[in-house]
């Protein structure tokens, strides 16, 4: 697909002067930093004024509170679409996809309402205009999406196609309600200056019943036109329209329509409406007279309204593939010489021409964030519409757009969670993008860290789990929160770090004579085995507990095990031996006997210590551990 030759958008950095300085920069996960500097050999010049660092962000829209609903709810629809069971029957599947499309559109409309309310209640004029702009953009999005739904998702065939397009016009294009209300609620509707405008609009939009209703008021007010009115009313009543159900074939309808058209023609040529220019013009419109329709340009306001009106009155059984010819000529006739197509016009034209890729490309350029194209393309992909186009990038384009959109979500402090699901449904690069983004999420609080961890654990992202736990452990350690540091290291399965922290605990104990974070150490369970030092810490604390509970035999056995298991750090040997001393006093403890079975060089030292036992000064120097029964 050829690239558009658009100029890249320029973001202004207020205050920086490209004539005097250059810019150094750095990417961050969500923002970019820029700063004025001078590269190259310096000539002693300095930038004037205080140096500034600029923080640049990609996407403004995700920060708008009022769009939050759009992102959240469309996320639900997206995930639902990826996960729902595909209906087997083509028709059922089609209905499913149409429903999804309608859901998306209703989310857009809901958001538009909110935005509109916000615009009304905004006290600041800049804010008001910002909201108003957003309303217009959302409105344009819904307009485009609706057309895509008709043409691509539903793929309405000739017949229903026209009906859908009429609905589309009525819903989106012309704001007649104000005018209608004004006219209907007036004393004398047929005398209202906008009366004929409203009648015309109804006719242009194929709203025959409403047009006839208004016309009847005119007939009552103006009895001289009763004859003309009756004929016109009859013609309008009889106009064949494509039926909703399949009660008639297209050919039948076309035949009927031909007859009706000829009848209208006769009345016009007979001069039946000659005395009322309004009614005559209506008759001409019924006959599909392009000039007559174009005269009502101001009422239709857009070329696509003109297109649909033309189709209604000249070719109601138009086939989808024929649309392109009518569309192009309608635009040309409507815009004429004065104006050239705007971005929205180009997008709609591409849709009428069934150029899906063009639609997506143009939307990508015209809209400031990826929300619209990402979700629409995903839906079209589910409709299996992208495969048939170009071999290189059918579903690659879907993934490309989803990756862009989700990446944007990650720069937001809470919307990133939505992004996770989008990455999950990008088979090729989703996982690696998620890995790269998720490890950058600032772990401000423990809860946030746990939330991120859960996401990583669910997806077996082991390296990210380890890294996050390590970062948290390091942070805790720096702030001297040993217990927290230890639990994070255990979660990270970081044996080296666990050893380090255990050493700190032991050091603390030696200095202060007691342990901190007892709850944690008491409940280590099997994670104790992560490192020898940690095992030692856990078991040593258990020894203290046993001693405190006066379970001296068990305590002694444990102590012995600690001494012989080679997991005690050398620095701790003295402490262990000192701990053994009071146990020797306990009659139940058969420590010496147990020790004698050991062929341990330390035994000699042990006995030596026992002899010191009798010296009070040694005992008092041994710290308060075994000397009192209250250990803590």
């Amino acid at each position, binding site marked *: 697909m050829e690239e558009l030759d658009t100029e890249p958008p320029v973001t202004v*950095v207020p205050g920086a*002067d*490209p004539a005097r300085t250059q810019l150094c920069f750095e990417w961050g996960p969500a923002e970019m930093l820029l700063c004025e500097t001078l590269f190259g050999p310096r000539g002693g010049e300095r930038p004037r004024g205080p140096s500034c660092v600029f923080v640049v962000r990609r996407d403004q829209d995700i920060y708008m509170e009022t769009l939050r609903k759009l992102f959240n709810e469309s996320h639900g629809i997206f995930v639902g679409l990826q996960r729902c069971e595909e209906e087997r029957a083509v028709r059922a599947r089609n209905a499913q996809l149409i429903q999804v499309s309608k859901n998306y559109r209703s989310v857009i409309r809901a958001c538009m309402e909110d935005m509109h309310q916000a615009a009304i209640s905004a006290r600041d004029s800049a804010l008001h205009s910002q909201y108003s702009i957003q309303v217009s953009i959302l409105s344009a999005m819904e307009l485009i999406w609706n057309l895509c739904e008709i043409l691509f998702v539903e793929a309405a065939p000739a017949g229903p196609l026209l009906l859908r397009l009429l609905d589309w016009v009525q819903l989106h294009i012309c704001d007649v309600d104000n005018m209608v209300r004004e006219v209907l609620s007036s004393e004398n509707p047929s005398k209202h200056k906008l009366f004929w405008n409203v009648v015309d609009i109804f006719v242009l939009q194929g709203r025959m019943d409403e047009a006839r209703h208004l016309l009847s008021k005119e007939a009552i007010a103006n009895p001289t036109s009763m004859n003309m009115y009756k004929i016109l009313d009859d013609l309008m009543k009889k106009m064949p329209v494509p039926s909703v159900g399949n009660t008639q074939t297209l050919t039948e309808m076309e035949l009927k329509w031909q007859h009706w058209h000829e009848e209208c023609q006769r009345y016009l040529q007979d001069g039946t409406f000659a005395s009322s220019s309004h009614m005559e013009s209506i008759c001409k419109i019924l006959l599909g007279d392009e000039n007559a329709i174009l005269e009502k340009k101001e009422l239709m306001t857009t070329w696509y309204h003109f297109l649909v009106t033309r189709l209604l009155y000249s070719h109601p059984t138009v086939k989808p593939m024929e649309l392109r010819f009518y569309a192009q000529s309608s635009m040309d006739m409507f815009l004429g010489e004065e104006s050239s197509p705007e*971005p929205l016009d180009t997008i709609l034209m591409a849709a009428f021409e069934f150029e899906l890729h063009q639609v997506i490309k143009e939307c990508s350029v015209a809209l400031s964030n990826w929300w619209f194209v990402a979700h629409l393309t995903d839906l079209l992909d589910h409709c299996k519409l992208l495969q048939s186009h170009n071999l290189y990038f059918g579903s690659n384009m879907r993934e490309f757009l989803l990756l862009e959109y989700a990446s944007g979500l990650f720069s937001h402090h809470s919307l990133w969670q939505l992004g996770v699901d989008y990455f999950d449904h990008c088979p090729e690069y989703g996982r690696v993008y998620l890995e790269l983004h998720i490890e950058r999420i600032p772990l401000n609080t423990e809860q946030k860290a746990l939330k991120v961890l859960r996401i990583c654990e669910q997806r077996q992202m082991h390296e990210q789990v380890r890294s996050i736990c390590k970062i948290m452990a390091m942070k805790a350690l720096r702030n001297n929160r040993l217990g927290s540091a230890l639990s994070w290291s255990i979660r990270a399965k970081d044996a080296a770090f666990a050893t380090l922290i255990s050493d700190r605990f032991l050091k603390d104990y030696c200095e202060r004579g007691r342990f901190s974070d007892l709850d944690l150490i008491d409940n280590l369970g099997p994670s104790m085995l992560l490192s020898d030092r940690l095992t030692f810490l856990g078991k040593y604390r258990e020894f203290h507990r046993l001693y405190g509970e006066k379970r001296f035999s068990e305590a002694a056995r444990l102590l012995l095990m600690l001494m012989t298991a080679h997991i005690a750090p050398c620095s701790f040997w003295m402490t262990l031996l000192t701990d053994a001393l009071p146990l020797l006093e306990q009659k139940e403890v058969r420590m010496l006997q147990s020790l004698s079975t050991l062929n341990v060089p330390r035994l000699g030292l042990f006995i030596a210590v026992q002899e010191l036992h009798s010296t009070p000064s040694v005992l008092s120097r041994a710290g308060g551990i075994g000397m009192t029964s209250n250990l803590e």
Partner: protein
Amino acid sequence: MFVARSIAADHRDLIHDVSFDFHGRRMATCSSDQSVKVWDKSENGDWHCTASWKTHSGSVWRVTWAHPEFGQVLASCSFDRTAAVWEEIVGESNDKLRGQSHWVKRTTLVDSRTSVTDVKFAPKHMGLMLATCSADGVVRIYEAPDVMNLSQWSLQHEISCKLSCSCISWNPSSSRAHSPMIAVGSDDNSPNILAKVQIYEYNENTRKYAKAEALMTVTDPVHDIAFAPNLGRSFHILAVATKDVRIFTLKPLRKELTSSGGLTKFEIHIVAQFDNHNSQVWRVSWNITGTVLASSGDDGCVRLWKANYMDNWKCTGILKGNGSPVNGSSQQGIFNTSLGSANASLQNSLNGSSASRKQS
């Protein structure tokens, strides 16, 4: 893109580098005023300077953050021929109340005989390691074997590049299929046609770095160089800032299986070359997914480059000053107009009363 904030940096002289920490919540600036400043982002998005101290006895060229797995660690390099490693120590509660923190120097790396032009930490899977490069043409790789003791760094490798070096970039790939790799750029501008980009790879057998490639087509002075994050690709992408912006791909070929060999040979392609800056390009840097490259040039602009889903690279944005001075610093949002222009055109296409849609 839009400028969300501007922060008065308060350095007394030219700022040379600005660096984000891993999570984007802290930043560091360094300057010719010989100091480094550290800024922290608060919950509401405001930036506050939490430390400012003299780091060197000459202009500080670059400052960079280590991975947070190693704690809060910075490295800086300077004209004074040294590089230094700094660690933040958790201060007294008084300091915390005042929003200040302290950074202490853990080590000074004094091996260079000339200005140290760049300093970069290695990818975290290699441990706590950094590389420096100097105008004397030597790249030095240091390691801190004990992550808890940052005052012990040992010089592990000295790579003589023969040309004055201006920039280095570690290959971030942690794949086992790739050996550690570092790219070095030279800004030597004596008239010669020597390759100004060299790629060194660690050889497991010899336990040394050896030159794997030289980009022969880059003969103009190189000011910056950057490997892109690896998205699971088998090949590497390298951006070079020279008289223009260049993007190369390096596809590893079969490793030569010689006894002391094991060096990878690469197939090198240039996938993009842009001279839109119309002048020297001084910095290049990749975003975190390696999908957008930013470059900064003598023309005072920053340009963004991106490949579409067909791998065609093009400029997708320009950041440029408008010359009008800013009044002090603004921590309020600055909504600029360029974003609005695209939207405005879409808005204009819709006629008038769209804002007052169905109000029933």
